[in-house]
């Protein structure tokens, strides 16, 4: 735990693997820049690895004033403990007020370990981050300039705002694609600060024996058109319709969590708060009710078509075109219409 420090910087953990930065880190730099400007403080990025100094310039172009760079062979491949040591030592030394991580497999492994060691709060999968104030109802004390950590909550159409006013730094994770990627400005200038970290035997005890990476198969984020299916398809067999429509229209297949949980399709296709956040030119939601966790991942699509036989389904609330009817009938009509166009 560090002292509450309103002058502290806003930090992003810059995730890199094999000398390439994860996109979510750059997306987060953009939002961290805005938060830092609102607070009138500097924005920093923590970059750890071996021979990755070059990546600092991209972080600076995307908004970092400072890059805390830890250059160490032992950090070449990500391992939890040494990376946690890097973050804990730097947080203790520089007392940033906010630290944000991408909610990637790496970020979700690292951030809770760091939060626990710092005895600080951590909110997972935020869909928005803002600066605001909070008044304690009992003590009547008002805390200004807090990080509002906003995420859908379990329980219908509910959005919860989480705050942490006393056990700093304020920490949050954000899924890839939630914050829009700004174009970087290569003329921005920033400072690269080299840091040395002390490791102990425990930090280095876990050994990486073998490593295997595959290129990403599903590119939901880059898709211009997404055809998404939900529990309303009813079966894996019927879900083929979604593949057919996506094939006809030249789109990528998406899914609700219920469809994924039912085994209609793999997790990598899930759209939503705990899946991928997308902003395609066209999103076609077939047999999806439109729970808040699903909408959080697709409502900024330029155009949304909703197909659902329940005219009260919340998905219609975000739709531009609504078709009240049976997906199993409507989707074949759409395929036909596209082929005839």
């Amino acid at each position, binding site marked *: 735990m560090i002292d509450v420090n309103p002058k502290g910087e806003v930090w992003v953990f810059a995730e890199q693997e094999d000398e390439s930065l994860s996109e979510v880190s750059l997306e987060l730099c953009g939002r961290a820049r805005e938060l830092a400007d609102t607070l009138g403080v500097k924005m920093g990025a923590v970059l750890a690895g071996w021979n990755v100094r070059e990546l600092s310039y991209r972080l600076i172009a995307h908004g970092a004033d400072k890059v805390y760079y830890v250059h160490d062979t032992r950090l070449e491949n990500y*391992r*939890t403990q040494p990376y*946690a040591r890097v973050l804990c030592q730097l947080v203790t030394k520089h007392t940033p007020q906010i630290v944000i991580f991408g909610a990637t*497999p*790496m970020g*979700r*492994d*690292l*951030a*809770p*370990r760091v939060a*626990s060691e710092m005895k600080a*709060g*951590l909110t997972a*999968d935020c869909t928005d981050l803002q600066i605001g104030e*909070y008044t304690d109802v009992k003590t009547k004390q008002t805390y200004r300039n807090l990080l509002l*950590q906003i995420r859908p909550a*379990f*329980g*219908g*159409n*509910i959005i*919860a*705002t*989480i*705050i*942490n006013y006393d056990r700093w730094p304020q920490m949050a994770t954000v899924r890839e694609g939630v914050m829009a990627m700004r174009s970087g400005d290569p003329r921005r200038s920033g400072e690269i600060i080299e840091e040395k970290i002390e490791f102990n035997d425990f930090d280095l*005890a*876990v*050994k990486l*024996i073998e*490593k*295997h990476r595959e*290129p990403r198969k599903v590119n939901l984020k880059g898709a211009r*058109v997404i055809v998404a299916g939900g529990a309303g398809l009813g079966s894996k067999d019927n879900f083929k319709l979604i593949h057919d429509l996506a094939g006809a*229209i*030249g789109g990528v297949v998406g899914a609700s969590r*219920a469809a994924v*949980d039912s085994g209609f399709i793999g997790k990598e296709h899930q759209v939503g*708060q*705990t899946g991928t956040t997308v902003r395609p030119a*066209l999103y076609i939601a077939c047999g999806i009710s439109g*729970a*808040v966790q699903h909408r959080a991942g697709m409502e900024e699509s330029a*155009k949304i*078509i909703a197909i659902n036989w329940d005219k009260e389904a919340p998905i219609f*609330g*975000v*739709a531009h*075109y*609504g*078709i009240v009817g049976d997906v199993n*009938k*409507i989707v074949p*009509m*759409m395929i036909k*219409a*596209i082929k*005839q*166009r």
Partner: protein
Amino acid sequence: MGYNCVVCVKQVPDTSSITGEAMKADGTVNRAALPTIFNPEDLNALEAALAIRDEFGGAVTVITMGPPAACEVLRECLYRGADRAILITDRRAAASDTLATSYILSRAVRTIGTYDFVFCGRQAIDGDTAQVGPQLAEKLGVAQVTYFERLVDLRDRTARIRRNVGNGWEVLEVRLPVLVTVIDTANVPRPAAARRAMRYKRARTALEIAGEVKKATPQAVEAETAREVDKRLEALQAQGLAMEQWNLDDIQADLSWCGLAGSPTKVHRVQSIVLTKEGYTEIAPTQEGVSRMIHELVVDRTLG
């Protein structure tokens, strides 16, 4: 020899069955109307532990923190093969965030004593945070291996574990003890064994026994009830059917790290979001209607 495994499990509301009946008029979920289930990935965690015990020997202890009714998932663990079950229940633990929860679990694990593995499901479906596992590892001061896919090798108190990192996998070598979080594709959890279910359906926690005694003899004075509870508990213990029940004092938890006081994250506000009903273009569910819509999308260049 053998390996001692502790498995942390959670009872959760079944989020996949939020249907009309479970919704209140204001659009929020009526939790009481939702059935509870065994958190799915915790079943995978249990299976990983049972597989190690079956191959190498040792014992599997399951713990759950929750309201008294959470002992239901403990019984389920006994049906499937767990050796020992402990319920951590205490009103003072209510409203714990993930940090306070991991602290309480760490106290429970330390109270159990020596262990080689702690297994958790990667995440619970009611929050999907995946935070408790890594936080518990840190609180215990042990290494963590998240997203366990399978055990590659285990010898001389050193494990090689293959973990799934989303866009691939890697194998880590780690000296025990270690905390492992398990994903749903790691294994197929074994079902309840009929003979074990027959036996352990009579397993009870002290609280459950008290409830049953009070129900049977509502007029009995307190001392009498207490005596009857003790008697039944002893009888169950003799048969190995008593599930242990611990409160925060039993695990010597520092209350300033538990419950609301121990939770750095606070809920500032919850908003029901009202959908901006700007209205949408309603398309007739006919071939004609659908074709017209597709045409419109081509004209406005949404479709290339």
